[in-house]
């Protein structure tokens, strides 16, 4: 399904993107992701298709806002039955939907007596009761505990696949985007990039997209050489050089930005200078992050490295000392500009 929506107030948005199965639109808070969902749902004035021009109650969508907005005065099954026509089979239909999301035992409970994940599933069942053509999820991970988040997400994705309704979920959480069938990145009111998560995460199109996807190291440089198997990028003062994989649309002398994930850097002190992409840098800060260690290094260039604990074992990392680090050429991502 193709989505095309133009908004002027309260934020300016010009969105054109595909929705396939479980699609995640990734964007920073305040970018207007919620506004886009409300526009598609017909709750705020906007131009676009599908459903443009229809009153909110006539649009075949299911909308799950943050916090799920269950009706507090209705029991779980009454919430699910809310969109169903008044009639004899209403309760049975609601119970059937609750069974499908595994909550039939809690049908008589009020929302206040349900956990975050349970509320989400009741809201899902309620949204699906109308047989929507598109399901809109606003930050589906925001109200979930870290401990149960992944489990609930897996289940949510499985359920929406079961129901066979295309889903557009908006989120600032790259983790959710990784689980998607299709993803798009919202930057400055437009779609900066879209595609399968594997492709987008590996090859962000711009620095802004890369930042959203968790890249921390950005280096300005120039393409020095293009060979059969790869390229060489050098810093402005030729003070550093990195081998990279081959990328389309690049030519020698072109100004580029290099992006490297912190977790793709590895200590290479045993390798010496002959190994590809080995850099000798001084450790300027060390910070524990859970069981990993974040190392900030400076020298010919500044890099941020996240060392898993396996890599830390047997290694003495001391502030102010020098360290060889290395990055595989295929993990050095080059972007134009």
């Amino acid at each position, binding site marked *: 399904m193709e989505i095309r929506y133009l908004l002027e107030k309260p934020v300016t948005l010009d969105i054109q993107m595909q929705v396939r199965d479980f699609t995640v639109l990734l964007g920073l808070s305040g970018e207007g992701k919620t506004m886009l969902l409300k526009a598609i749902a017909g709750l705020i004035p906007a131009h676009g298709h599908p459903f443009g021009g229809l009153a909110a109650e006539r649009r075949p969508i299911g909308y799950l806002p943050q916090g799920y907005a269950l009706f507090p005065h209705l029991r779980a099954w009454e919430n699910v039955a809310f*969109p169903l026509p008044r009639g004899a089979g209403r309760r049975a239909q609601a119970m059937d939907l609750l069974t499908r999301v595994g909550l039939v035992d809690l049908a008589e409970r009020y929302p206040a007596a349900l956990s975050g994940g349970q509320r989400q599933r009741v809201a899902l069942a309620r949204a699906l009761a109308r047989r929507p053509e598109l399901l809109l999820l606003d930050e589906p991970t925001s109200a979930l505990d870290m401990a149960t988040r992944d489990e609930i997400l897996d289940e949510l994705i499985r359920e929406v696949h079961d129901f066979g309704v295309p889903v557009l979920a908006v989120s600032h959480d790259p983790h959710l985007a990784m689980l998607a069938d299709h993803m798009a990145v919202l930057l400055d009111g437009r779609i900066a990039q879209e595609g399968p998560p594997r492709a987008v995460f590996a090859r962000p199109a711009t620095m802004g997209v890369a930042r959203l996807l968790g890249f921390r190291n950005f280096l300005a440089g120039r393409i020095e050489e293009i060979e059969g198997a790869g390229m060489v990028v050098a810093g402005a003062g030729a003070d550093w050089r990195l081998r990279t994989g081959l990328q389309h649309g690049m030519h020698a002398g072109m100004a580029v930005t290099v992006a490297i994930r912190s977790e793709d850097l590895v200590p290479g002190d045993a390798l010496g200078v002959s190994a590809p992409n080995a850099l000798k840098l001084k450790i300027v800060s060390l910070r524990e992050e859970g069981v990993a260690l974040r190392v900030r290094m400076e020298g010919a260039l500044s890099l941020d490295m996240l060392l898993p604990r396996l890599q830390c074992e047997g290694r003495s990392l001391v502030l102010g000392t020098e360290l060889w680090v290395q990055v595989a050429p295929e993990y050095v991502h080059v972007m134009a500009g």
Partner: protein
Amino acid sequence: MSDTAAIAITASRQLPTRWPTTLTAIAVLVFLLAPFAALVFATDWHDFQFAPGDLDAIRVSLFYSGLALMLVVLAGTPLAWWLAHYHYRGKWLVDALLLLPLLTPPLAMGILLSSLYGPYSPVGGLFSQAGLYLTNTAPAFVLAQIYGAMPYYVLAARAAFEGVPEELEQISRTLGRNRWQTFWWVTLPLARLGLTAGVALAWVRAMGEFGIVLIVAYFPQGIPVKLWVNLQDMGLSAVYPLLWVFFLVAVPLPLWLGLRSRRQGMF
């Protein structure tokens, strides 16, 4: 330090802070309720009888207050909903104007109504031509009660509607319900505690309205004006029976609604 010493210190710490507030609270409660106790003792229970016309006053008050309450709810609910839902420039002015009838002393309001609806005013003249006389008549009585009660109901109902999360009303729309259905199935049930408080308040105001009624509709006499007349004509002891009835009809409904809404705060 031994355990007993520790306990003694805790106790002595709590005493000076807790007792004065409790005692003050009790004293203020006694002060507030003392007049009601006085009524119990002052009433001559062996010779409990109504003054002539008291029963008519009760009938008038009950019937017309009920009618006024119905009209207040019917007209005030859409206004309150509109005030709670629509935001536009200069709304503060509308809010301020709305407070005007609320803040105007009843006697002054009565004089204003006489000026507007009196037989010699253009508006009053128009109504008279249509056969509706708005001085010292049943319609005038109801009109006075409406002016006394409606501002309170509108304020309470508006607060009740504002307390309903807009998101729930929006969700109802996305679930295929139009504005009217949303109002009945989402807004109204969620605002019902505040609305019942508004109804109770309006009932008390309508029943007890004296100042406006005195000026605009001395007749037909309801309980408040009749109490005043009895007091003037026969003295204090003659008003107690009617006063008891006044309490019995005016207070239980709001009291019951108030207690109920306190208990049902949560779903």
